[in-house]
């Protein structure tokens, strides 16, 4: 059941504006998807190659709405006790022992040790117990097991959790849920259907220029667009690990730090620093000075 959807939904233009204001340069389609999240109350599933900034979207969304970001990083073997809640067994045992000495009333003791004081809140429970509509980021859901995915699906449709000893906890506000996947495993159709979908591609030269300017202080527009064009060339080289946006930003910061004003001034430095974009030995050895000179030749 969906409850409490706010009457006022931010329009996609407003969202786009605010995204820019918080330093996230979105493609044209993302703001509409973010608007739909609120309008339809569905989670958003983000896919795309590693390094295109999927996680950044959730962070930006949180600052757009001025909400808290709660993150659940998925991994193989993730289960309810790490994702949802766990009783604090050590404290419970200690409490039992301590009160046995005083001959406490067993009923009262039982009520007490299964109270909230002994409950360890994990990200999912934390997200549905907050009042201020947090953004819940479920990162790399494809790494979790299928069983967990099924459990998550149930949680995302009911937004309530039942803890046998404590009763059912209903969401006080429905969090905005963002899921990301790197496609290491195919997700179930049920989960996919439940979610809105957005595919993030590597940014084109124009958008990447804007990203660099938004994120790297004291960088000139000319150098930004040169860097973006150069990175696009590198991405087309069929490397083992395609450099992501984070690598571009690292490189741009490095060039600013080395006081490079124009890529053509210093091809040697360009080649040496460019290697911080490459993360495997194989790619590095393939990426000779000739290759970077050729790519640099295409940059305006």
């Amino acid at each position: 059941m969906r409850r409490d959807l706010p009457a006022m939904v931010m329009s996609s233009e407003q969202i786009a504006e605010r995204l820019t204001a918080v330093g996230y340069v979105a493609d044209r389609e993302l703001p509409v998807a973010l608007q739909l999240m609120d309008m339809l109350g569905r989670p958003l599933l983000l896919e795309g190659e590693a390094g295109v900034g999927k996680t950044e979207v959730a962070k930006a969304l949180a600052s757009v709405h001025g909400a808290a970001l709660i993150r659940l990083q998925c991994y193989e073997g993730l289960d309810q006790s790490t994702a949802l809640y766990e009783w604090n067994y050590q404290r419970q045992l200690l409490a039992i022992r301590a009160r046995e000495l005083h001959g406490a009333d067993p009923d009262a003791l039982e009520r007490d040790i299964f109270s909230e004081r002994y409950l360890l809140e994990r990200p999912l429970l934390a997200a549905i117990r907050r009042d201020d509509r947090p953004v819940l980021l479920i990162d790399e859901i494809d790494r979790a097991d299928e069983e967990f995915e099924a459990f998550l699906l149930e949680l995302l449709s009911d937004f309530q959790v039942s803890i046998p000893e404590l009763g059912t906890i209903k969401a006080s506000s429905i969090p905005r849920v963002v899921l990301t996947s790197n496609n290491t495993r195919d997700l179930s159709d049920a989960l996919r259907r439940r979610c809105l979908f957005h595919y993030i591609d590597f940014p084109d030269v124009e958008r990447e220029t804007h990203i660099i300017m938004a994120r790297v202080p004291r960088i000139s527009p000319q150098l930004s667009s040169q860097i973006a064009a150069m990175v696009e060339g590198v991405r087309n080289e069929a490397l083992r690990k395609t450099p992501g946006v984070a690598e571009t930003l690292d490189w741009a910061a490095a060039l600013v730090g080395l006081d490079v004003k124009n890529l053509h001034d210093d091809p040697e430095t360009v080649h040496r620093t460019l290697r911080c974009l490459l993360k495997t030995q194989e790619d590095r050895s393939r990426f000779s000075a000739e290759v970077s000179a050729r790519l640099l030749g295409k940059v305006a």
Partner: protein
Amino acid sequence: MGPLLGGTTHSGDLGIDMIVRLAAFTWTLRDNGFAVGLKESEDAARIMASVLGTQAVTFRTALKALFCSRRSDWLKFDDIFDAFWRNRGRRRVPMLSAYVSPAKLAGMRLLAGDDRTADQRTGLGEQCSREGADEDQRDAGGRVRMEGASRAEMLSEMDFRKIAEPLAVAEAHALAERLARRMRTRLSRRERARSKGRRIDLRRTIHRNISHGGVPIELLLRRRKRKPLRLVVMLDASGSMDLYTSVFVRFIHGVLDHFREAEAFLFHTRLVHVSGVMREKDAARALERLSLLAQGVGGGTRIGESLATFNRWHARSIIHSRSCMIVISDGYDTGPPEVIDGEMRRLARRCKRIVWLNPMIGWDGYAPEARGMRAALPYIDLFAPAHNLKSLAALEPYLARL
């Protein structure tokens, strides 16, 4: 394109025409392989009635986010949308599917032609053997079992090339499939017999020991869940493998049917992912669909390129830490051997084990002389013959140890 709706913003105002049209659009999407449910149609109507529905661009973007659920959907959505909403006259977009006209594929004789008749018969024989699971040998003629069993013995040692009469071919196919099924049951039993866990599961321990007053007498342990072994089979369907392909196709069909986790690929000049097709329960139908998918017979084998395609596009989602890759090929490659070398190295890094089955090992006086084969050898964990059923059966103990 003007506003899709006359600027209305309340869902009650949606005209019946628009609702009908939206419904037609969802059907078009379903035809194109989108998973669209009732809830999605309902939400689409809400989008249409909202401010997003007043402009073509935002309407398309919104529906795209709603209806797509994977990258392949994402890539084709805009075209389908434009074809539907911008040409009023056309109701249906041509199906964008992987199927090719049968005429084009007459060349796939090795999979469809000769063997088809035989396979239809096997389909029948198989039903019989499913009814009486233990009755190993009963063919369409309803022969005595003894004779069947000895026949099976003989067949299992015979080189696939030499099995010619249709009845024997059918039996060999059925045997191959049954073999795959048996491998499955044995492998899974071994999994279950594994040792106890290592860490204490506190939640369950306390729950179990309520009757002891909370004193943990019985300890409950957790063990790591073992991933089931995943088999990935790549079958060479080139001309030089002609005489073997059909048996292996049946073997793969059996493997896919009975292993929880298995994937199959076929390659000749290019790589085709055939798991979906091979999961078809009826073997004859599976073969028919397969022959539709597999084009490009003749023109040489490109093992290296096919491996490259696999590494680039499939490996990440298909290979996990407990995967075993089985390549079935004679290693005759028309591409440069360096490509094979590089791609095999990449594959070996991801994969737990690589098994290469080469039917020619069974021949007298064979040495792996083919250039492609020699390039691949250093990365192979098990290089084994696969010219008869016995050699396939010999694979099982190896897989069980993984």
